[in-house]
């Protein structure tokens, strides 16, 4: 038997549609996770002890269990509590919630990186909390949270392969199905690895460009 990736590459249109599903689920999951994670981090910081404790416990549960198990529970366990989800919505919700837990930790560290005095200066000038968050805290933490955010996005892209087990027609599911049909499983997995790697490299480049741009905008050494 020969190692011949050609038999997989011939199925380019199918691979493309799997790639499309992976990309949009990933981008939507990351964006949703960034927004929800920021909201969670903000609520934990300003919402008082009880809110912090409740949200903290949820975040720890999500960070403490494998994504594979969470997605299994949501898809196969959901119906027992009346939550019937199709594979794609289930995958999107799962990915968003999972990434929100991690992004909330990134933003928690971001908030902690802004010196208290900078916030106090804003308070003394009569700025409201939302003005202080949007004009002082977010811009100051941007450079700190950007590298871990890109890193997390890369990890989430790879985690999204797990969605194949609940029959989401994403890249991993599509390519491994082609592999089974063509009796070329190894070739399929090989192509899969290359495609993920290319997306990761592109994301990394984009992240570095954003970082350079941001640090040029900002002269702080702190």
């Amino acid at each position, binding site marked *: 038997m020969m190692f011949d990736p050609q038999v997989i590459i011939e199925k380019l249109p199918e691979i493309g549609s799997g790639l499309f599903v992976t990309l949009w689920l990933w981008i939507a999951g990351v964006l949703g996770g960034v927004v929800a994670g920021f909201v969670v981090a903000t609520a934990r910081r300003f919402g008082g002890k009880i809110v912090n404790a409740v949200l903290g416990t949820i975040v720890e549960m999500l960070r403490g269990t494998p994504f594979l198990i969470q997605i299994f529970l949501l898809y196969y366990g959901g119906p027992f509590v009346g939550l019937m989800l199709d594979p794609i919505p289930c995958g999107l919700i799962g990915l968003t919630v999972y990434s929100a837990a991690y992004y909330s930790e990134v933003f928690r560290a971001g908030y902690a990186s802004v*010196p208290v*005095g*900078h916030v*106090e*200066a*804003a*308070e*003394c*000038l*009569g*700025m*409201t909390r939302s*003005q202080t968050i949007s*004009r*002082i805290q977010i*811009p*100051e933490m941007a450079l700190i949270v950007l590298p871990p955010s890109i890193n997390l996005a890369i990890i989430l892209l790879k985690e999204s392969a797990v969605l194949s087990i609940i029959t989401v027609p994403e890249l991993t599911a599509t390519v491994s199905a082609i592999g089974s049909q063509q009796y070329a499983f190894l070739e399929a997995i090989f192509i899969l690895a290359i495609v993920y790697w290319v997306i990761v490299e592109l994301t990394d480049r984009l992240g570095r460009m954003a970082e350079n741009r941001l640090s040029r*905008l*900002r*002269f*702080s*050494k*702190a």
Partner: protein
Amino acid sequence: MSVPAIAIRKLVKRFGETAVLQDIDLEIPEGKVSCLIGPSGSGKSTLLRCLAFLEEPTSGMITINGEALGFFEDPTGRRERLPANQIRAVRTKTGMVFQQFNLWPHMTALGNVSEALKLVRKVPKAEAEERAMAQLRKVGLENRAGHYPSQLSGGQQQRVAIARALALEPKIMLFDEPTSALDPELTGEVLNVMRDLASEGMTMVVVTHEIGFAASVGQQISFLDHGRLLFSGPPAEIFAKPRHARLEQFLDTYLDRGASMLA
């Protein structure tokens, strides 16, 4: 008698079990420079931070130009927290200058000074920048308007911070050890700006280790030790014939240090 710029009545501040300020009663007259001195840990910075409402008093009341700051307490001791927008309004009557400057690193000097005008006073951008420029001119830094904090010396940063605090035209300026983080040769430029402000009749409350500044510019000197206000009065009285043993001891350490520097 006119209303004092700041009136502090029976102020107590505790952090957990430790009482940092105990029964402080003090009136700060309008248009005067009032200096708070005392050893480290005496509570002088905490007192100033209470005046800026950066620390919430445990009990007692502070009024700024006759308006309650943060809490209203009636004579029976029942206290009530004032609404957030009212607290913000009273806070903008004071301008605060910090030991660590606390400029926002992502904004230029002009951005730092004009930000609150735009956000809090809703002044249009062009006018806000014009007014910010006037404040920078006042502290002698109009030619540094486009510089970021990291491109300025410590003394320049603190002058920008003073301009920022002046932008909303507060009635009272609060200074928390404004020269303590500066190289000795940079303290002069900041103290000069403060002298200019004092000569314009600005009410100022200054926590300082610069005993020389307190003696020459201060019109009311308050001495704190272990959270208690031990003495408050005009500088002549406090420096010429300190009758309080603890105050005498405190001033002696400064005199000793001065003498050893000359030796």
